[in-house]
């Protein structure tokens, strides 16, 4: 089969916050840059972000990057790499101010400076008092960010390939990345994008879980493509569960509701958070609240006929407050729970929200993997940024508003590195291997010719249920073990998906089948990595690693202060050390301590 080829200096897969920020760096440096995206850029999932972007501007309260770095390391439960965290926190002000110059309509103080508001886990003076560090544009921060970056890219002549789906990474005999294969949805044709540099910015894979706050588009395509190409995935056992997704729908109810006085109650109407977090109660950190809710449900104190959720009660607030301060929430509750929160409490469950792990990178955005005794050797020609990447700044638990910051800092950094690598002659257009398109074409042909196969929707549902049951908020050693067997069975079914509609043009059934190939890689990585990590840390909490005097919170630094690396081939695990050393001498390493709030 003859496959069309296009050549670029750089090809970026993904046009969310991370992809657009990286593209800008390249196009403004005059490089010939192509951006591939499944949907129109401003319809990327970054649009959903409302809370804001973190930067220690100190406009509303005193602040500095040292405090931000401390909060991030502690939030990560010391699994984050301190060089990357230093880099991100130091760069935060620069990238946020840049965005302001690109026309981002941040909320402002009377003195004209960017307004900042508090957010969970962010503090002054190394954990002493809350700080206002989040910069927002009303409740449309992500949306405004994408628009500002998109306009700027149009000006810089970035070439967009909208409604193109990247299928697989192309590596040559040296293991270097020389581009991607992609399908144009309008024609169903596969093309090769041959490039000196390939940057993945494909977002997260929250749809591996049954209950997720993520839109359907978050299918982990970049992560799946990397895994199929032999690149390991880092720390995939760590997923953040947001305490309040609407039961049965997953739609996010912001922390702001509890900030306004919302109370979580079990089946007897008991305000159970008083027992789990006597001080902060309903406003304790995300992982603490999610685990408390799950304990209530597991111990039979859940609500509803299936006793499978708890209630978020705001009926004691005045209708005026609800209408004025929480209007969006009322609409979500009415639409998805059939309940007016002025009159009755909202059914909620902890819901999968954010992927902490991903494609391993360093702070320059280079993808790294073990090679010749070096645990973090750059894969030539390959870069990644955003939720699909693991720099690793979020470690075992991400702080709210640090993700949008991650997109900006590491999107830009990946772009800068590519510009340097190309200008210095480090990167050139390497020859395409003969079999460049084979992997993608084989997947397409398999789908085309499959008979007596499995149903995409059913396999996806089986995966989501398996993940939810076996690798949820709380993890149990026996369920995890069983989960590995089960997810491998589901993966086997995923190899035989069949589609009825074989048409070439705009075939959404084919797209969903191809997406499932990626989701299943992420699911296998998550389950296998979680089963193996025999400690509790951040978002990963196991029954057989409880809180003891010897090992507070069940964290085992003696054995598990290391990053997981999962390889798709052979479902194999490896590990690499956490970098506890900051990038510069401006700051001392943040010493290991017990994470308490």
């Amino acid at each position, binding site marked *: 089969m003859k496959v069309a080829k296009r050549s670029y200096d750089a090809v970026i897969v993904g046009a969310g916050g991370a992809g657009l920020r990286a593209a800008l760096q390249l196009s403004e440096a005059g490089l010939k840059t192509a951006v591939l995206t499944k949907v129109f850029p401003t319809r990327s999932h970054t649009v959903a972000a409302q809370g804001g972007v973190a930067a220690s501007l100190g406009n509303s309260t005193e602040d500095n990057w040292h405090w931000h770095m401390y909060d991030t390391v502690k939030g990560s439960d010391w699994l984050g790499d301190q060089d990357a965290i230093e880099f991100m926190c130091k760069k935060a002000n620069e990238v946020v101010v840049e965005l302001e110059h690109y026309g981002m309509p941040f909320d402002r103080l009377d003195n004209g400076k960017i307004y900042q508001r508090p957010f969970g886990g962010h503090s002054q003076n190394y954990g002493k008092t809350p700080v206002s560090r989040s910069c927002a544009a009303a409740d449309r921060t992500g949306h405004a960010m994408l628009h500002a970056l998109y306009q700027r890219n149009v000006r810089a002549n970035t070439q967009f390939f909208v409604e193109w789906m990247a299928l697989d990474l192309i590596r040559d005999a040296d293991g270097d990345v020389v581009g991607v294969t992609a399908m144009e949805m309008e024609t169903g044709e596969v093309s090769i994008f041959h490039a000196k540099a390939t940057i993945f910015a494909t977002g997260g894979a929250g*749809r591996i879980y049954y209950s997720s706050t993520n839109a359907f588009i978050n299918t982990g395509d970049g992560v799946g493509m990397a895994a199929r190409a032999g690149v390991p995935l880092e720390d995939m056992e760590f997923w953040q569960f947001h305490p309040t997704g609407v039961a049965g729908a997953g739609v996010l109810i912001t922390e702001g509701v509890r900030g306004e006085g919302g109370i979580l109650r079990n089946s007897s109407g008991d305000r159970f958070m008083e027992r789990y977090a006597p001080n902060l109660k309903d406003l304790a950190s995300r992982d603490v609240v999610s685990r408390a809710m799950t304990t209530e449900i597991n111990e039979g104190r859940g609500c509803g006929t299936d006793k499978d959720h708890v209630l978020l009660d705001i009926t004691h607030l005045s209708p005026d407050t609800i209408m004025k301060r929480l209007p969006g929430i009322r609409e979500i509750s*009415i639409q998805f729970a059939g309940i007016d929160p002025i009159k009755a409490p909202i059914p909620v469950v902890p819901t999968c929200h954010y992927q902490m792990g991903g494609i391993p990178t360093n702070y320059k955005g280079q993808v790294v993997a073990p090679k010749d005794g070096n645990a973090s050797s750059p894969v030539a020609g390959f870069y990644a940024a955003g939720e699909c990447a693991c720099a690793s700044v979020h470690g075992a638990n991400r702080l709210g508003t640090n993700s949008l910051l991650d997109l900006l800092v590491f999107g830009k950094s990946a772009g800068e590195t590519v510009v340097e690598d190309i200008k210095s002659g480090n990167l050139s257009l390497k020859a395409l291997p003969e079999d460049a398109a084979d992997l993608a074409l084989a997947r397409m042909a398999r789908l085309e010719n499959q008979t007596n196969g499995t149903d995409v929707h059913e396999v996806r549902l089986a995966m989501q249920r398996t993940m939810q049951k076996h690798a949820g908020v709380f993890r149990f050693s026996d369920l995890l073990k069983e989960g590995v067997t089960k997810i491998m069975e589901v993966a086997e079914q995923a190899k035989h998906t069949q589609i009825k509609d074989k048409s070439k043009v705009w075939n959404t059934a084919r797209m969903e089948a191809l997406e499932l190939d990626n989701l299943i890689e992420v699911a296998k990585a998550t389950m296998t990595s979680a089963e193996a990590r025999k400690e509790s840390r951040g978002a990963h909490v196991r029954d057989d690693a409880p809180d003891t005097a010897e090992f507070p919170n069940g964290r085992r630094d003696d054995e598990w202060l290391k990053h997981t690396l999962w390889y798709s081939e052979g479902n194999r695990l490896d590990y690499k050390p956490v970098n506890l050393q900051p990038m510069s001498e401006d700051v001392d390493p943040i010493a290991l301590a017990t994470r308490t709030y």
Partner: protein
Amino acid sequence: MTMHRGRVRWHCRRALLELDIVLTRFLERDFDQLSDAQLVDLQDLLNLEDHDLWAMVNGSTECSEARWMPFLGMFRESGRESTIDNKG
């Protein structure tokens, strides 16, 4: 002007989960029944920004075009019926 059905269907993939959910049942049940003319109207509606479309669906802003009203009605109904066993 005729629209490719598959293309309009793909444009029902949104950036907000709220919209994905309200469109799920609509896609299963109502979408295939739409006439070509309706498809054009739907495509125009789908060209709205996600937050603006969601505000129209949930009624917090008024629908600016009469020809979109029937769709908004179908979306709302679809959202009410949808459970978590969605297509995502």
